[in-house]
């Protein structure tokens, strides 16, 4: 087929009929509110929420995942334009990562070595490990669905960022319920959940976000 023939046909496909842009911010808000509702209805808000939320180490449980989620979301949203290279996007994750490692080391350093394993393990390890990916999955699906309408030229990286965003958001939502306040617990297991979602996002994104 000649290229000029193709062009002649393409212009018949009404150039003004633009596909609908899906609003990313709106969908993320809806999905986060939904997962917060699930956490509050199924698990319930931790009983001592009002008392402990003033403690910096408890606040960090919300803020650290958000420090992953916010830049990831921003880059994921930018990725919808093909000219976005996403260069340096993952470097932003170094900030919360360094803080988590510092908190983890200082927490363990203040404990005798024979208490380390029990502190890291906590009392709700399996609920935590299951909840974060479970709450994150619909958010990731929604993000990928919105992003698929865009035209990313980095499908795997864009998918990974969407996964990190979903993991970060779901971890900070799950923290409403979670009563484990030691950085030795959340620093390990929240991070694990978030990284797991990042990997899932990368694997799915490299297929789903191709065009």
């Amino acid at each position: 087929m000649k290229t000029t023939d193709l062009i002649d046909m393409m212009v018949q496909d009404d150039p003004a009929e633009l596909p609908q842009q899906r609003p990313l911010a709106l969908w993320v808000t809806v999905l986060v509110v939904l997962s917060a509702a699930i956490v509050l209805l199924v698990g319930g808000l931790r009983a001592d929420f009002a008392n402990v939320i003033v403690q910096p180490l408890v606040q960090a449980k919300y803020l650290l995942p958000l420090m992953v989620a916010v830049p990831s979301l921003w880059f994921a949203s930018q990725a919808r334009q093909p000219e976005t290279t996403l260069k340096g996007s993952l470097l932003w994750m170094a900030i919360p990562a360094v803080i988590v490692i510092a908190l983890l080391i200082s927490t363990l350093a203040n404990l005798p070595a024979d208490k380390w394993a029990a502190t890291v393990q906590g009392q709700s390890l399996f609920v935590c490990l299951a909840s974060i990916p479970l709450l994150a999955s619909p958010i990731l699906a929604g993000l990928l669905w919105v992003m698929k309408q865009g035209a990313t030229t980095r499908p795997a990286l864009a998918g990974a960022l969407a996964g990190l965003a979903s993991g970060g958001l779901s971890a900070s939502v799950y923290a409403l319920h979670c009563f484990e306040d030691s950085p030795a617990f959340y620093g390990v297991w929240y991070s694990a959940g978030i990284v797991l979602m990042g990997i899932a996002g990368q694997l799915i994104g490299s297929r789903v976000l191709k065009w």
Partner: protein
Amino acid sequence: MATLKEEQVVAEFKKALAGDMVVYRQFLQSMTPVIRGIVHNKLPSFDAASVEDIVQEVLLAIHSKRHTWQQDKPLLPWIYAIARYKSIDALRAQNKGDAGPDLDIDEIDEIEAPPSDTEQQMDIATAVKQLDGKLASVVHAIGVEGISAKEASTRLAMSENAVRVAFHRGLKQLVSLRASLTGEP
């Protein structure tokens, strides 16, 4: 090859996005040699016919992803990014398992296009016949006969929206069919 001016291209594309088909044709035609240049430059080992296949894919990609261009952002980097992405994708498809180079947007130069003496002389009507049943009738009616989507919807007893969707899908299929039509591997 005349150098493309960002402002001029932007003005044309904006008019095209507003539905001006004449300007849209002009825009796509003036972009074609530029795209051909980028594809050729990215894929020096591809012969002219394969390059042309990818050029056509890039044109269709520009069309189907045109809503991702933000009107306050430069247009040429947007187009170059799509052309590179499709080129590298073609390279990956060719050497499966090979990761291929990563996209690099920094070197945005216009590249002189190679002569395009090998545009395949395939009759468009013959190509359309190879499409799936319904797509063929829609693409033939709109693309070859040149009737409007509305007229086609009455004739083919489909909704106007279904006609548009079928036409769009038909165009995409035409591009992916062209390889077999022209006897290329």
